[in-house]
């Protein structure tokens, strides 16, 4: 019997789903069965970073067979240990089902099959707090190769040839950025990693930082060598405690093992990395605001030019890249630009990690080849949840836009997305089903951006607030015909005259929903109707058809506001108290309850 290894996903998602409890239980069971020799404590269970299919957490993989168990309860652990570990029998009842059939191996999950792991190559596979584990997986080989065998221009050429574009959202060619900084004739230069991931629902960067911190350090080191910088800063938000912990450990380990510090790889190249923790202001994801924040100033964007590549941190030339961008660097150096360029499309090489959320069967992190279509992405995520119809997908977070059903075959790459009126952004991918109100979606994102505006310029600080006001008016059924025009005018002003990218992009969710779903807006304004029944103010109170009511009382139990009371023949709903949530109608066994209805 081959020695087994247990991997337990210890990403933030699984930890909150109860991974630690599962781990404790596993340890107990191993002890109980006197398996501690076979599974010496230090190596018994490997805590990995995010494995990806977050809604299946807590989850474990048992090697060498890669057997995958998800959605575990502590009570399942006993069975797994007894059956699988002791008797080498797969516990079929605990396997995850895809389309009705049980999947044994992790790699064969539909969710994993369609993916291409480049950035997430180590996450979910190695123990992120172990430098040894990283080294066993070719860690720091790329940096060694770059520093000892390649000269600066060669590295920059390699990155340029790979076609890698910035994963922070705007997609600027990374090699070109490095070249600008390398060309600057200054002694002090810096490399900065932007880990201020702020889009609602996005956690790609967090997962990479948590699951594979050394790959970021290595990527930054290669950048530092290429542009002539010996100091790097990683900026992470305080809301990512696990990422911070793993990075701190990673930096300390790398320092003590000589992978950071002076004379790296026995050359005259020095490189150090410091961690800077931000307070979670969305605007600090904007590069100039982030640099101000590192300098200890208020996180407010600065005018460009000069760009950070020429004058960044403390006015010195600075390469600033996103987490995911840096994660791509070591593997490009290791496998070569051609290998990387072959992945993806012509204008967008490589992969992109998306945080897939919303109305899909399986939410979580999906790393897909550039050019994967929206439809394929949804398929990876197990399709629209509950068998409902697909309506649209919101890509790119608060700065992105919404793509409707008719473009479901759109390949996801920088240029196609831009053409469709959205951006790659940092990788938000929210699937919306037929029950989603698009006005409500726009309102959600605008509510976020107006609150996160740094307040520096009026269009962003005040324009977004005004737009939100109009959207609120519309969803409350008070929309006036001229409101749509006002909304567009405001959007245009905010887009064209805001100071930084945050402001300029903030009307995108409104503009793209207006472009593809104008009829929905119009229904709200002219018909005072929310076609999907989302906007409560536009729905009449529910009522019960006395002739059908069987006085079972189920409706009374589910009503969250106690609007339902029992009568002699039938239950009744107090229309003043009713908030039109529709819960009663869902539970009524005889369909006696309807909106408006029997008045």
């Amino acid at each position, binding site marked *: 019997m081959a020695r087994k290894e247990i991997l337990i996903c210890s990403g933030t998602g699984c930890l909150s789903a109860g991974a630690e409890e599962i781990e404790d239980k596993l340890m107990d069971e191993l002890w109980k069965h006197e398996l501690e020799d076979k599974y010496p404590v230090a190596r018994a269970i490997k805590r990995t970073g995010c494995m990806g299919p977050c809604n299946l957490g807590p989850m474990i993989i048992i090697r060498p067979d890669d057997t995958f168990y998800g959605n575990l309860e502590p009570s399942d652990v006993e069975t797994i240990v007894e059956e699988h570990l002791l008797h080498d029998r797969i516990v079929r009842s605990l396997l995850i089902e895809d389309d009705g059939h049980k999947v044994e191996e992790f790699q064969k999950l539909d969710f994993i099959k369609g993916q291409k792991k480049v950035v997430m190559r180590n996450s979910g596979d190695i123990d992120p707090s172990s430098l040894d584990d990283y080294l066993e997986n070719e860690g720091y080989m790329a940096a060694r190769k770059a520093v000892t065998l390649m000269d600066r221009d060669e590295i920059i050429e390699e990155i340029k040839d790979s076609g890698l574009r910035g994963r922070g959202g705007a997609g600027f060619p990374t090699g070109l950025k490095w070249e600008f900084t390398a060309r600057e004739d200054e002694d002090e230069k810096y490399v900065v990693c932007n880990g201020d991931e702020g889009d609602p629902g996005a956690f790609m960067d967090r997962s990479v930082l948590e699951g594979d911190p050394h790959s970021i350090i290595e990527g930054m080191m290669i950048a530092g060598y290429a542009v002539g910088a010996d100091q790097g800063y990683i900026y992470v938000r305080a809301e990512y405690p696990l990422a911070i912990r793993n990075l701190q450990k990673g930096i300390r380990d790398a320092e003590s093992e000589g992978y950071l510090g002076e004379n790296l790889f026995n050359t005259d190249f020095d490189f150090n990395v410091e961690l800077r923790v931000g307070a979670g202001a969305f605007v600090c994801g904007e590069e100039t605001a982030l640099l101000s924040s590192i300098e200890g100033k208020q996180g407010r964007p600065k005018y460009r030019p000069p760009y950070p590549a020429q004058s960044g941190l403390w006015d010195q030339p600075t390469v600033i890249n996103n987490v995911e961008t840096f994660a791509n660097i070591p593997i490009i150096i290791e496998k070569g630009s051609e290998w990387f360029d072959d992945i993806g499309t012509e204008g967008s090489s490589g992969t992109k990690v998306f945080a897939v959320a919303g109305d899909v069967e399986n939410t979580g992190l999906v790393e897909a080849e550039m050019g994967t279509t929206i439809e394929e992405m949804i398929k990876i995520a197990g399709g629209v949840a509950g068998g409902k119809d697909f309506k649209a997908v919101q890509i790119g977070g608060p700065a992105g836009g919404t793509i409707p059903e008719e473009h479901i075959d759109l390949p996801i790459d920088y240029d196609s997305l831009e053409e469709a009126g959205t951006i790659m952004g940092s990788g938000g991918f929210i699937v919306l089903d037929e029950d989603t109100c698009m006005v409500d979606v726009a309102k959600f994102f605008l509510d976020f951006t107006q609150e996160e505006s740094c*307040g*520096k*310029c009026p269009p962003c600080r*005040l324009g977004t607030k005004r737009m939100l006001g109009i959207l609120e008016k519309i969803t409350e059924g008070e929309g006036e015909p001229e409101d749509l025009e006002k909304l567009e005018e405001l959007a245009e*002003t905010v887009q064209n005259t805001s100071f930084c990218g945050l402001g300029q992009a903030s009307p995108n969710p409104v503009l793209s929903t207006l472009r593809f779903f104008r009829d929905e807006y119009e229904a709200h304004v002219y018909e005072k109707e929310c076609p999907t029944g989302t906007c409560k103010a536009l729905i009449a109170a529910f009522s019960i058809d006395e002739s059908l009511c069987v006085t079972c009382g189920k409706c009374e139990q589910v009503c969250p506001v106690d609007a339902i009371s029992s009568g002699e023949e039938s239950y009744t709903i107090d229309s003043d108290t009713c908030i039109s949530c529709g819960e009663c109608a869902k539970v009524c066994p005889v369909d006696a309850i309807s909106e408006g209805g029997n008045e």
Partner: protein
Amino acid sequence: MSTVKFTVNGEQVSAEKGETVMSACEKHGIEIPKLCQHDALDNVMACRVCIVEVNGEQIQPACGLKVEKDLEIKTETDEIKKYRRMNLELIYRSENHYCMFCESDGDCELQDLMWENEIDHFEHPRLFPDRPIDSSHESIVIDNNRCIRCGRCVRACEEVVGNQTLGFGGRGLENEIVADANDPLGESTCVSCGMCLQVCPTGAIFNKHSMFKGIKDECDLTESTCLRCSVGCATEVYTRTGHLVEIEGAGTDEESGGQLCEMGRFDPLLDKSETIDEVIYKENGTEKEMSLAKGLEKIAEVLDEGEEISAMASGDLTNEVLDSFSDAMRAYGALFDVVGAKRHRFEKEVKRRINMIEGHFIDDIKEVMEADHILLYDTSVRDTHPVLASYIRRAAMNGTRLITIDAYEDRFWEHSDISISVESPKTQLTRLVNQVIREGKGSIEDLSRVSSILGGLRVHPEDVMQVVKHLEEPTYDIIILGSEIIDRWSLRHIFELAKLEGSYLISLNQASNQYIRSLETEGVYEEPDIAYVLAGDEDEQEDMKNLVENADFSIVQASKRSQLTEKADLIIPSLSMFEREGTTVNINRKEKEVKQVMEPKGTLKSEKKFFEELVKKR
């Protein structure tokens, strides 16, 4: 400087390379509307009102965009006008901009732009956030309800005053101007210079003592020089029907860059002391008014009888008044001194003894911002010369190492790299520093040696060694000597130190008018028969008070009642600083004009004439 040609609204314009489009346009008479841009401050491109069209495609703020060859700029396209108006409306409708109920109605840059852009009806309802008003400060009110978040005040506080009291707090609609960590301004680190309210384009920050007294356009404006300290800031004094309304700094002024301090900006507005309009003679404890002619006769009579006469003038008077007063007093055989002149006489003596050349003295206080090290001896400069203090803070913020030595509290504690406080007489410390340098040269690493030189002084030897090390570096070092030091030994030690280390010196003086350097003065009788004191507008000086107290008969000439006039036997009216006309010499040895702001109220109309008459009476 190379020039670049580009077009604005189809017209060819040439500008200097590196210049912004806004500045180039303004030089050619093309006005671009703006709110956050201010010539004294860095451009932050925040207000989005100065937007222009670039090469028919982009929209950029003119205050941030640098000129480039063949750039095509359009400032008034339909699109630009539309966006500009939208942004103005957003600004105007989002806070409490009810002009008719605002202190700055008529003095408001936002209001002007609303007029110019003919925005008289609105698309959007008024938001009314109802933010608390901060009126905790004695003179300055901050009303965030009228704030447009242009950040001029924040920049002025940091960039000009070097103080960093004001900042932004909160995000989005919660974004507001706050003092320190959202403290009431009156309890903050504010130095009360009022630069914030001077640059505020709206009624968000205003002067309590000037409010509702009149809009600037309806006031008379006099450009003058402040006589509160020897920096001699250029002032713009607004009056209305002969009453003081507001005092501002002149942006064109080289010394101050538009700054004023609490003394120059607020104190004159706060001064409510009783003025002296007539000659008053005290007889058996009662005051009797007298005509000016009678007063003259009385003075002549008294002075003629006196054997030992001491005359002392304030250092805050004009050259002309000092000259004519000195002439008159010498005509009567009096000894003549000016407050602050003693320090000059001592300095002269020290310089002669140690053979020190004038080259060590700097005549541009802004030079402190270029220094590598500043040794500030006596930190009272924060209160006596606040504008110079702002340059010291700015220097420290930009990397100059600041070393402070003071007998009391270090008033630059937030900025000093080394702060040495001495409880013992100051002379000892200066001697000490010198001694360490002389005896310890080459062996200053030896701590015990330094300690032995330090003897019983309660000073950390490490600190002194650091000071010595810094000054020994071949860098540009400036020693600033506060005005409170008036003992010869200290002066000697510090001057020697400067000579030894090749440092430069700025020597401050109590007197605001440095004309006293060239005026002949001498020590006066301490207990004279007769004392004649010509006071200025400053608070009473010790020297003057002592003189009046110790004289058998005292004449005090002043514009307002004070402790001096209380004790005087004969009180003569003088002009106040706003009634006087003449010249003054500031710390940079530059002659500056003092203009008459208001007509003299009392019977005395010209001091010069008065003293000439007095001479004739002899």
